[in-house]
C-alpha cells in the first residue's frame, strides 16, 4: 500500500494487489500515508500455495478491478487527483466571474453553494489583518496527515465570503477548536454528523455586525453566515472531509453549513459568558463546541423558574441522543427566559445546578430504549444483555450530565418571545470551555503602547 501511494505521489498511476486477508492492514497503511480511501485490488487468500495455472486464473479475475482502478474517474479523484479535468488555474478578469465560480465548483471546492473566487491580491487583504506568518499552522489533523496554515484558512475564509475583518475571528475559532479537542481527533468524520458551533463575545460583535439578536441561528447576517462557513469549506477543501467520503455522517445536520452566533450580552441579565472564564467584558472571544443538535424550546407563559428549568432538563435528558454514558450541553436562553431565571434571583450557576439535578432518566426508562448499561471498552450506552455490557453504577435515577459544569449557559436571540435552544455538545465534561481571545492588529498595537 505504501508502495502504491509513494509511486502515485511521484506521478505514476499504480494499482496495488493484496489478498483479502490483508485488507484491514492495507487500509490502515493507506490511512497512515494520508490516503485512507486509496483503492486497491484484492484476491482471495491465500496466494502463496496456489499452482501456476491457478495463479493465471486469479490474474484473469483481477483484470477488471486492476483496469478500473487505473482508468476510471473515482469519486475521490476530485479530492486527490492531479492534474484536474481543467488543468490550469484560470486567470480571471471582470467578465470571467461566473466562469470562476464554476471553476471552483468543478474542482469540488465548495459546500454545494457558490463560493467567492479568490486571487492573490484579494487574499492579501486577509493576510494583512493578522500578524501571524502565513505558513503558521492553525489546525492539524494528524490522523489524516493534513494541516491548515494561516494562508489556507484565509483562502477558505475568502472563499466563504468573509470580509477581511472577520478573519481574526476565524483564526481564533481554529485555536478554540484545537483546544476543544474533539475536532482534531476525527469527530468531524463520524457517522454522528456533528458540526462546530461558534459563540462570540465582546466588542467584535458590533465591529463586524455579528448578529446576536433576533434570528441568531438563521440567515441574513454576513458575519454569522460566512465565519461558520469558513470552517466548513476548510474542512472540505484542506482536510478532504467530503460527505460520503472521509466525512461519513449518516444524515449530518444543517449546522454543518454554518453555525456562528453572538451572545446577546446587552439583553442578558447576567455578565457575558467570556467574563465567567477569566476575560474582561472588553475582550473579544470565540468559543467553539462540537454539536449534535440545536433543539427548540418554547415556553411562552412560564413565569416560574422551576417549570422552565424542567422544560430544559427534560430536553437534555431525552434518550434519543444519549449514546454515551453522559452528555454535555449548552443552553442558549432567549432574553425572556433568562429574565425568568434572573428575576427570581437565579444566577447562571443556579440554572446549571437545577438543570443538572433534574436532567435524568429512571433505570426503567433507559432499559426501555436499550441504553441502561455501558460498554466495557467505550462506555457507550448499550442494552444490559449486550455481550460488552457492564452496569453504569449510577443508581435508579441516572443524571445525564456528569456535573453542572458540563452545561454552559449563554444568552442569545430576541426578547420578543419565550423561545430558547438546548444545544447538545461533545463537551466540556467538567473542564473549562475553550474560550479564545480574538487578536486584531489594532489590539496588538494597543497592547504594545
Amino acid at each position, binding site marked *: 500500500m505504501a508502495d502504491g501511494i509513494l509511486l502515485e505521489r511521484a506521478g505514476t498511476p499504480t494499482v496495488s494487489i*493484496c489478498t483479502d486477508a490483508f485488507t484491514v492492514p492495507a487500509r490502515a497503511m493507506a490511512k497512515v500515508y494520508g490516503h485512507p480511501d486509496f483503492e486497491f485490488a484484492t484476491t482471495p487468500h491465500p496466494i*502463496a500455495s496456489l499452482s501456476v495455472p491457478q495463479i493465471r486464473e486469479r490474474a484473469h479475475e483481477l483484470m477488471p478491478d486492476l483496469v478500473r482502478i487505473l482508468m476510471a474517474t473515482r469519486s475521490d479523484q476530485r479530492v486527490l487527483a492531479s492534474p484536474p479535468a481543467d488543468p490550469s488555474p484560470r486567470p480571471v478578469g471582470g467578465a*470571467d466571474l461566473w466562469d470562476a465560480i464554476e471553476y471552483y465548483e468543478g474542482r469540488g471546492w465548495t459546500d454545494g453553494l457558490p463560493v467567492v473566487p479568490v486571487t492573490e491580491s484579494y487574499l492579501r487583504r486577509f493576510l494583512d489583518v493578522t500578524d501571524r506568518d502565513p505558513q503558521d499552522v492553525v489546525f492539524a489533523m494528524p490522523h489524516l496527515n493534513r494541516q491548515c496554515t494561516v494562508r489556507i484558512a484565509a483562502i477558505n475564509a475568502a*472563499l466563504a465570503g468573509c470580509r477581511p475583518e472577520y478573519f481574526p475571528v476565524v483564526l481564533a475559532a481554529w485555536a478554540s477548536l484545537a483546544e476543544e479537542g474533539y475536532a482534531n481527533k476525527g469527530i468531524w468524520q463520524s457517522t454522528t454528523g456533528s458540526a462546530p458551533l461558534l459563540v462570540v463575545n465582546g466588542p467584535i460583535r458590533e465591529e463586524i455586525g455579528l448578529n446576536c439578536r433576533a434570528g441568531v441561528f438563521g440567515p441574513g447576517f454576513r458575519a454569522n453566515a460566512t465565519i461558520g462557513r469558513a470552517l466548513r469549506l476548510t474542512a472540505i477543501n484542506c482536510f478532504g472531509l467530503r460527505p460520503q467520503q472521509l466525512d461519513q455522517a449518516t444524515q449530518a445536520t444543517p449546522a454543518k453549513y454554518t453555525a456562528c452566533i453572538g451572545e446577546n450580552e446587552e439583553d442578558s441579565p447576567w455578565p457575558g459568558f467570556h467574563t465567567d472564564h477569566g476575560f474582561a467584558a472588553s475582550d473579544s472571544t470565540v468559543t467553539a463546541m462540537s454539536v449534535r443538535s440545536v433543539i427548540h424550546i418554547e415556553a411562552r407563559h412560564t413565569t416560574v423558574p422551576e417549570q422552565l428549568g424542567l422544560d430544559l432538563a427534560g430536553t437534555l435528558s431525552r434518550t434519543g441522543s444519549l449514546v454515551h454514558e453522559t452528555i454535555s450541553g449548552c443552553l442558549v436562553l432567549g432574553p425572556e427566559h433568562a429574565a425568568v431565571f434572573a428575576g427570581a434571583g437565579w444566577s447562571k450557576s443556579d440554572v446549571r445546578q437545577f438543570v443538572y439535578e433534574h436532567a435524568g432518566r429512571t433505570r426503567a426508562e433507559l432499559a426501555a430504549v436499550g441504553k441502561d448499561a455501558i460498554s466495557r471498552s467505550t462506555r457507550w450506552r448499550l442494552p444490559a444483555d449486550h455481550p460488552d455490557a457492564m452496569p453504569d453504577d449510577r443508581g435508579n435515577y441516572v443524571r445525564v450530565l456528569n456535573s453542572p459544569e458540563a452545561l454552559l449557559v449563554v444568552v442569545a436571540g430576541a426578547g420578543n418571545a419565550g423561545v430558547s435552544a438546548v444545544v447538545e455538545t461533545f463537551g466540556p465534561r467538567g473542564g473549562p470551555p475553550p474560550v479564545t481571545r480574538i487578536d486584531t492588529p489594532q489590539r496588538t498595537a494597543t497592547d504594545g503602547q
Partner: protein
Amino acid sequence: MIGSGERETLLDPTGGDDASADSALAPRLRSLAGLRVGLLDNTKPNAAVLLAAVADELRGGWGVESSMVYAKGYFGTPVEESQIRAITQQCDFVVAGIGD
C-alpha cells in the same frame, strides 16, 4: 482582483499548491494501449508469478506495449526513492503486489 481589469490566477483552497503539504495522487489513464507497465514485486511467495500473469493479460487484452519487473530489496519497507525514480522514468503505470 476580479473587476479590476488585471488578470490573476484563482487560488487553490486545498493547500495543494503548498509543496510541503502536497500529497496528490497521479492522474487516471485514458487507455493502456501502447504503454509500458512496471511490475513491482515485493518478493512474497508467488508474487512474481502473479505479476507475470497480469503482464500477459495486459499485453494480450489491453494492448500494453512492454513490461519490466522491479524486485524490492525487502518486502517489509516501502519502495526506495532510487527505485521510485527508475520506475517513474521507465514506466507509464505500475502493478504492485502482493500484500499478503
